[in-house]
């Protein structure tokens, strides 16, 4: 019934689950009790993330010899027990998330409560990527959503609470539908564990497909659930902006992959979803080109790239889709951080921004070059309508790339002269530099990156 490579437990798994929970509760309390000592909370969060990054790296090294490992909480076997799965694909994603979240901590915060919220967000993301269970996916999705509402609402901007509320209600409805579909899957299969579900070959059709896929369609966001993102990002805190543009699409991608991997997907549904993502690409690229505001343009740019990745995923090219989504996460993180904290690069902020922008455009020697070529080929090979969509997207992409650079230049004019930077800003600087090096390395070794991506995300 279970995977043949179900091997020994790894010491890091309980720590992965327990440590962020304990630290975030501790930090939350200390932030509430001792409001004046906000620096102390930030330092602790910083240390916690550094340890988590270290643990992820060690676990990847430990896993090099075996394929994957899992732990059953309380030694209860599914369907009653909770299974946490650790393999190279989710560990690689966790390492990326841990580093991105460290960047969240390093960005200056107005409120000390933001640090526990970042840890809570990290718990949710960690659980979401580690769990091998449909119900726990729902639980961790809700935890992530709760933390992200907080990140969106805590900003000093006038409409932040309103934007967060108008995100909360549809998010609540879509995740509740996911919960109902999970219960229906339990009624059909008698289990919620993904491995056990995959052995039953349940067909994903009708209401089941709608319920299971809606939260991810909302998070991506694909048409017609795409309106909320720009509004939320424009009114959000810096950490909220980073989450909604880089990590939320990654979550959606992984959710779609998990569902498509373990259920029997009819070809018509896959084509329908591909058509929706293609349409989203066109509309978002038009919006990104016409938008005068930097953040709006960037959000639409993120939507275009996520939709492209999802298009490849729906047409059964998960390796290419993974390459595209990783390139998007890295590039968006660099672009937003440089935009929000221009001082850390003194007056040379446009260099990392330009590298990230070229990476997102799909220039040669950047990781999205092969993925973009692959996706456009997939567009043309799927049908003539998709080919037409690809042409329109390519034209508008070039316009919005120029538009984004123009908006960034305007921002650069107002940047003050360089000042001394503290340890957090220095860490952020090295993090961005590390991301840029990763972009170059992934770009140079694209063929290897593609092979690894196919290995991590095989076809279903």
């Amino acid at each position, binding site marked *: 019934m279970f995977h043949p490579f179900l091997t020994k437990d790894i010491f890091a798994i309980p720590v992965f689950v327990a440590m962020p929970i304990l630290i975030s509760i501790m930090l939350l309390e200390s932030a509430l009790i001792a409001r004046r000592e906000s620096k102390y909370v930030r330092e602790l969060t910083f240390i916690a993330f550094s340890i988590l990054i270290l643990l992820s790296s060690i676990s990847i090294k430990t896993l090099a010899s075996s394929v994957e490992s899992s732990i059953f909480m309380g030694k209860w076997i599914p369907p009653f027990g909770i299974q946490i799965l650790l393999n190279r694909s989710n560990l690689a994603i966790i390492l990326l998330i841990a580093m991105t979240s460290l960047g969240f901590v390093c960005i200056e915060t107005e409120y000390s409560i933001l640090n526990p919220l970042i840890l809570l967000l990290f718990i949710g993301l960690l659980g979401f990527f580690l769990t091998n269970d449909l119900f726990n996916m729902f639980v961790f999705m*809700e935890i992530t959503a709760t933390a992200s509402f907080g990140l969106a609402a805590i900003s000093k901007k006038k409409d932040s609470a309103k934007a967060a509320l108008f995100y909360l209600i549809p998010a609540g409805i879509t995740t509740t539908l996911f919960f109902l579909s999970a219960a229906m899957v339990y009624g059909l299969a008698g289990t919620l564990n993904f491995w056990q579900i995959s052995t039953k070959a349940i067909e994903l059709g009708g209401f089941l497909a709608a319920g299971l896929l809606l939260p991810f369609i909302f998070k991506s966001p694909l048409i017609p659930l795409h309106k909320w993102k720009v509004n939320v990002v424009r009114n959000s805190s810096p950490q909220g902006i980073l989450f909604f543009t880089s990590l939320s699409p990654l979550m959606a991608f992984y959710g779609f992959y998990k569902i498509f991997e373990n259920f029997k997907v009819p070809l018509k549904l896959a084509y329908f979803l591909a058509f929706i993502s293609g349409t989203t690409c066109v509309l978002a690229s038009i919006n990104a080109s016409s938008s005068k505001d930097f953040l709006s343009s960037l959000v639409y740019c993120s939507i275009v790239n996520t939709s492209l990745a999802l298009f490849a995923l729906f047409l059964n090219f998960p390796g290419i889709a993974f390459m595209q989504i990783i390139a998007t996460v890295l590039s968006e993180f660099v672009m937003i951080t440089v935009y929000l904290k221009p001082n850390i690069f003194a007056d040379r902020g446009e260099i990392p921004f330009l590298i990230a922008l070229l990476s997102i455009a799909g220039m040669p020697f950047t990781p999205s070059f092969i993925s973009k070529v692959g996706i456009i080929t997939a567009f043309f090979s799927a049908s003539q309508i998709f080919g037409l969509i690809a042409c329109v997207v390519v034209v508008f992409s070039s316009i919005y790339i120029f538009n984004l650079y123009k908006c960034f230049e305007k921002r650069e004019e107002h940047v003050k002269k360089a000042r001394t930077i503290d340890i957090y800003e220095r860490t952020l600087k090295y993090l961005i530099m590390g991301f840029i090096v990763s972009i170059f390395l992934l770009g140079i070794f694209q063929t290897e990156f593609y092979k690894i991506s196919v290995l991590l995300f095989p076809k279903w």
Partner: protein
Amino acid sequence: MQGIMLLCLLLAIGLYIAAVSKNIIKKLIGLNVFVDGIHLIVVSIGYAKNSIPPIFFNGSGTLTTFVAKAVDPLPQAMILTSIVIDTATTALALILIYALKWKRGA
């Protein structure tokens, strides 16, 4: 059948209020009605007529007869978790509404 129709009605009412209403508090109430409707549906998945609670003790007979008679505990456990999450989300939404009111000075 009547039960299912009632549940569908509850879901429709909740969804309608959450989607259409312009008042944020009403939207939140609609969301809660919708979530409660979902909870009832999930409970009904695990329900069986003339069944016993899923607690095994010495007087319950053999394990096989107990398993045949007892209701499925998993949907109930799922709902308990969902209720907790729903409460937290509602509390957060209320805080957001309060913050919104405070920011606008209404």
